[in-house]
């Protein structure tokens, strides 16, 4: 059992090199892959989530922890059926047309993945048509639109118009976020949800698919 604790600790401290070695050792030693994930890697990430919410950990530390967890999961993945990896839901996300910023969006992706969402990240400067295509191809429950600039957030509305025109607007919930975005702006353009930061975004998505 102490092995799992050590693995959890490596995730909590963000020591991804140690997390990788320990995971590999456990696989080589014949430890149950499900246990490696649930009792080692995810157990560690659960502690991280609590500490982050309490303000005891900062984002760069959470990101290193997430990296440690996913390196471990990547090693274990080939050994188990895809259906055994828990998935909360599917989300397509991207920064809207004209905007090249992606830090906030990447943070949201990380938070969503750490609570079990499968995330399709379309990147930056995503044209409205590309969101439409992605909805048709990936059939997500949620689309996330990000913008940093006050000058590009207007393109969120254009994306909603394109989804409407393509007849797929009703198939997805659309959430918006980014520094200049507000709940009022969200309501005004007719989006389904707004979150002021990545932690709230993850709660919002859980609520929307729940």
């Amino acid at each position, binding site marked *: 059992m102490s092995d799992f604790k050590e693995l959890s600790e490596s995730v909590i401290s963000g020591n991804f090199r140690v997390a990788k070695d320990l995971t590999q050792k456990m696989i080589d030693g014949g430890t149950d892959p499900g246990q490696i994930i649930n009792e080692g890697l995810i157990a560690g990430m659960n502690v991280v989530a609590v500490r982050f919410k309490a*303000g005891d950990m*900062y*984002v760069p530390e959470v990101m290193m922890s997430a990296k440690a967890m996913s390196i471990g999961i990547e090693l274990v993945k080939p050994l188990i059926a895809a259906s055994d990896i828990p998935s909360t839901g599917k989300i397509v996300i991207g920064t809207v047309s004209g905007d090249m910023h992606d*830090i906030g969006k990447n943070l949201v992706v990380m938070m969503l993945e750490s609570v079990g969402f499968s995330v399709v990240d379309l990147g930056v400067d995503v044209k409205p048509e590309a969101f439409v295509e992605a909805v048709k191809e990936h059939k997500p429950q949620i689309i996330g639109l990000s913008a940093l*600039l*006050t*000058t590009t957030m*207007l393109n969120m509305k254009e994306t909603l118009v394109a989804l409407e025109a393509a007849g797929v607007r009703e198939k997805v919930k659309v959430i918006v976020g980014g*520094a200049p975005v507000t709940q009022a702006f969200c309501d005004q353009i007719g989006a389904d949800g707004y979150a002021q930061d990545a932690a709230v975004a993850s709660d919002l998505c859980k609520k929307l698919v729940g």
Partner: protein
Amino acid sequence: MTIQIKESNFTDNKTLQFKVLSVEQIKQILNNTLRILENTGSTVHSEEARTLLKNAGCSVEGTKVKIPSKLIEKALSTAPSKIVLSDRNGNKRLFLEGNNSYFGPGPTCPNFRDPQTGERRETVTQDVANTAIVADALPNIDFVMSLSMISDCTATLADVYEVRAMLENSTKPIVGWTFDVDGLKEIVDMCCAVAGGLEELQKNPFLVIYCEPTSPLTHTKEAIEKLLYLAERKLPVVYPPGMVLGGTGPMTIAGALSQGLAETLVGLLLSQLKNEGAPFIAAIQGGPLDMKTMQHSYGAPELTLLIAASADIFHYLNVPIWSFAGATDSKVVDQQAAIEATLQIFATAASGAHLIHDVGFTDLGLTGSLEQLVMGDEIIGMVRRLIRGIEVDEEHLAYDVINEVGPGGSYLGQEHTFMHFRTEMWKPTLLDRQGYAGWEAEGKKSMYDRISEKVKRILHEHKPEPLSEKVSKELDEIIAAAEQRVRIKNA
């Protein structure tokens, strides 16, 4: 007996200054920048720009451009080392050279603190007009920006409407922002109408356009097109990266300075390749990502330190300098707002940056505030007194009057006091220096009460010089044509 008095430091070197970087450190940062430009490269999303760069000898693969350092050296030698900005009437006002510091508001706030109700609400055209009126009235605000991203007009013409409102409500030089080249053309047309033609505007420019690279090391099509358009017409452009340290820039300040310099220098190179001698204002901006709230902090001391260091770098490179001060992360104009604004204003002025914007920013740059602008004016006045330093010559050493008053006398009734008190002492307009009883008698007002009253008074009383009817009509026509352009585009 005569004492030989040497010429004082005051006449040689009139301003108080401080430096953050040594020349050796500047060279290290510059070398790091050249290494980034040559090895890491930049992404340039403009075909015209890539062609210019390729023809000049850069390696271009897809959108990735790698720039040899000799090109940067050449561009630095052809870019003007000083720029003079005029007022709307063609009088030369701002001399962007040496250690001359000029202050103004910032751009694109989607929210505004209503000066009458005190409520935070969406920004409207009247806010731009009000910002211009207040900036026009304040003695220490030298240029106008809109503090706005207005919501009560055709959305994609906010940039054009804002410049019009600024032209109508102030004669001070304007720094505008734009969405794209279409809007930029209309803005330049409006300024040409005011100046009496492009040639007049070029001779006495009162318009600077703000466009920015996207950190890290990315140059969007829109930003570059605007920059090239202005370079072609020899109109001044500022191209400041807005990094977030730990996000879009390295966490360490020396690293962020290196990357930011690489970003603004790509703009400088492109402006010179398009039109040698085109006026370019350089900048490096970047505050830390607050790792708890994930917000870009304007009030952080690291941003102030970085911006002061950037002034050292551009003084060394001999390029006009864009900078930042007078902003706060606070949601209201309070103690935090005063602390943050004061530190920034002192550091930027003492570092000798030239065009210093963002006075009036609150709420992490998302809410414009006339109160913050008015408080900034007071702080700038105070700081300018510090920067002016101490004059040391026979008259100021005051030997004669000391001799006359002698031990136990008084200086109050002396002519020397009468002659010097107005110039030697800065006089506050908002800071309270009353005795307790006087303060009580005037209604026990707080600093904020006095600021708010001053804002309202300026808005009520200050009448900026109007544009002529003929020019106003020309602006109407340009706006009508812009509306028509948008209608066609949306049809």
